[in-house]
């Protein structure tokens, strides 16, 4: 994942990267592994600057999927700090850049929720419900959005 230049560029631009290696940083691995309940490697956690976990990626992923998950984590962090306009934009970025990944239906769902939170307009949720009738119909996110489609 990490040797890919797109991953290097994304991580360098948007994250402060911290590696805790199971052997090279044994004490830190035990301490932080317990603190963050990391039970498998690789485990990549996206943290706010106060150390709160906003997203977790467990296990290897191909580059495209890994990139989509990093973007998804950035969107979740924006949502968590109630920056709903930014969150919607970031979720839309996931949807547009990585439409064939598992992150895409999740991003479609949360983009709509972010818009709803930003506008307080229920039409945003209805639009998401309708969007899942033509795209990602077999995803769990389509089930979650099905309550809004009519």
């Amino acid at each position, binding site marked *: 994942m990490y040797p890919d230049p797109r991953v290097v*560029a994304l991580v360098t631009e948007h994250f402060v990267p911290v590696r805790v290696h199971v052997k090279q940083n044994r004490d830190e691995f035990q301490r932080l592994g317990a603190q963050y309940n990391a039970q498998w490697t690789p485990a990549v956690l996206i943290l706010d*600057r106060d150390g709160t976990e906003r997203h977790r990626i467990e296990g290897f992923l191909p580059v495209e999927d890994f990139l989509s998950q990093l973007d998804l984590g950035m969107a979740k962090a924006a949502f968590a700090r109630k920056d709903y306009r930014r969150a919607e934009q970031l979720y839309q970025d996931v949807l547009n850049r990585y439409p064939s990944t598992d992150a895409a239906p999740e991003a479609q769902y949360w983009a709509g929720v972010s818009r709803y939170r930003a506008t307080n307009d229920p039409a945003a949720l209805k639009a998401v419900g309708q969007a899942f009738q033509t795209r990602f119909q077999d995803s769990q996110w389509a089930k979650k959005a099905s309550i809004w489609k009519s």
Partner: protein
Amino acid sequence: MAHEIPWHHDLDAALASAGDKLVLLDFSAAPM
């Protein structure tokens, strides 16, 4: 542009210096 990721190894220092960035914490067993 960087060609490899400039890993830090001190989480507390990384959090303190993060500013507007998020922290990516990588628990790894990859060969070094």
